[in-house]
């Protein structure tokens, strides 16, 4: 019988990560050096298990041999453990404060969700905009590093174990025991998807490098629990890009335990909601 390995039991050393980084940089022009080290190591360990590889050297061999394996690897690396309506209090603040003010002041509302990954934040945002009655004057720009991630995000089928937690989050968000997320959901054979109507004002774009991404003037940027996966240096760069793309008085949300205090551009933001980490761009 095959021993099922647990990713915690796989030791990934610094030298293995160095070799892998080198390979991905030279063969696939992809820089692993932007990722925070612990979660990077855990994700690499997971790819070893999924692909039934014994060592990081075997992983490197497969990456050198096959471009399609690289895409598969990239997808496996971006698996996120998020939920719909994570932190219900954030979504209430988004609905009651941000949406209200932005829709009062603007004819069109432009929202950017960088690192959209598996799409949970897109769907939560679209549902809130729908319920606030302002979805038709909104556009959600969802970006991630490459086309494969975007494709995966677009056609995503979610597994049933996410359902209960998400329904509970939604009820907490609505503060209504009878609120039913199910009205947006379509059951499938192996899980569930969302009503296509939810995606009607979502535009997907690849963000591989800054100069290839032309859109600016966002009213809101929702970037929760992305920075935690990057090094401080890369986070600082990302914040710079976001700051530039946000319009004056635009809103910016990060995860409730994320931290921008060490970033140069932090001084351009005023904290509006300390518990949900929502900022307003007040500097230039």
């Amino acid at each position, binding site marked *: 019988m095959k021993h099922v390995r647990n990713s*915690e039991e796989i030791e990934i050393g610094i030298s293995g990560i160095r070799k892998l980084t080198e390979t991905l940089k030279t063969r696939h022009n992809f820089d692993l050096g932007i990722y925070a080290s612990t*979660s990077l190591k855990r994700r690499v360990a997971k790819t070893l298990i999924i692909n039934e590889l014994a060592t990081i050297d075997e992983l490197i061999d497969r990456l050198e041999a096959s471009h399609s394996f690289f895409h598969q690897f990239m997808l496996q690396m971006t698996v*996120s*453990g998020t939920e719909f309506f994570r932190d219900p209090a954030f979504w209430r603040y988004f609905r009651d404060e941000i949406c209200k003010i932005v829709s009062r002041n603007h004819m069109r509302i432009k929202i950017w969700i960088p690192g959209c990954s598996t799409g949970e934040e897109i769907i939560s945002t679209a549902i809130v905009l729908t319920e606030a009655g302002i979805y038709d004057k909104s556009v959600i720009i969802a970006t991630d590093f490459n086309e494969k991630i975007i494709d995966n995000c677009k056609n995503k089928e979610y597994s049933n174990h996410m359902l209960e937690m998400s329904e509970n989050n939604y009820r907490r968000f609505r503060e209504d025991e009878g609120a039913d997320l199910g009205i947006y959901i379509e059951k499938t054979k192996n899980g569930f998807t969302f009503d296509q109507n939810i995606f009607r004002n979502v535009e997907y774009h690849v963000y591989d490098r800054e100069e290839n991404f032309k859109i600016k003037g966002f009213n809101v940027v929702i970037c929760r629990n992305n920075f*935690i996966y990057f090094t401080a240096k890369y*986070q600082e760069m990302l914040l710079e890009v976001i700051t530039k793309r946000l319009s004056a008085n635009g809103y910016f949300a990060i995860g409730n*335990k994320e*931290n921008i205090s060490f970033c140069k551009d932090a001084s351009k933001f005023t904290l509006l909601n300390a*518990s949900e980490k929502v900022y307003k761009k007040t500097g230039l």
Partner: protein
Amino acid sequence: MKYKLIIIGGSAGSFQMVTKILSKIPANFNIPIVLALHRLKHVRHGFVEALSIKSVLPVIEPLDKESLKPGKIYLAPANYHLYVELAGKFALSTEEAVNHSRPAIDLTFTTGAYCYKEKTIGIILSGANRDGAWGLKKVKDWGGKTIVQDPADSQMPTMPKAALEKAGEVDHIYKIDEIIHFLKSLV
């Protein structure tokens, strides 16, 4: 000083034990203590405040990329895993639950032990599942000190027992008063 990091893992039945420990840690205690305790994922507020009431030292939930500092008690925030990274900083993650837990005790223990090696102390308290067992084994493998609350002294002995089973021989099996006595002796 020998030790640079103390990690305490606990679940059901550990809250009062942790409160008791924190009430006895003296003001001049200068090793950071990291608490990896199971908690309700959607209740973000109140836990740190409850632990602070009797604690002599400040109890805080660390932010991502915050540095570990002596004289502070750190509590793993709700619905995040808490990692310790090289360079003495915390990192957070929303990756999937481990042992049905986020924060998972195993992850704080394994990452802390990897960074601080023999300068780590790992303590497993009362709990009703097996989280922390693998983590304590890693503390031992890296040469750190391993302490388990005496199962007979634990409200829920499953977690201490699992840790003893997984890690094998540990440095100490202590009642809560002995854990406090040991910690005070480090000053």
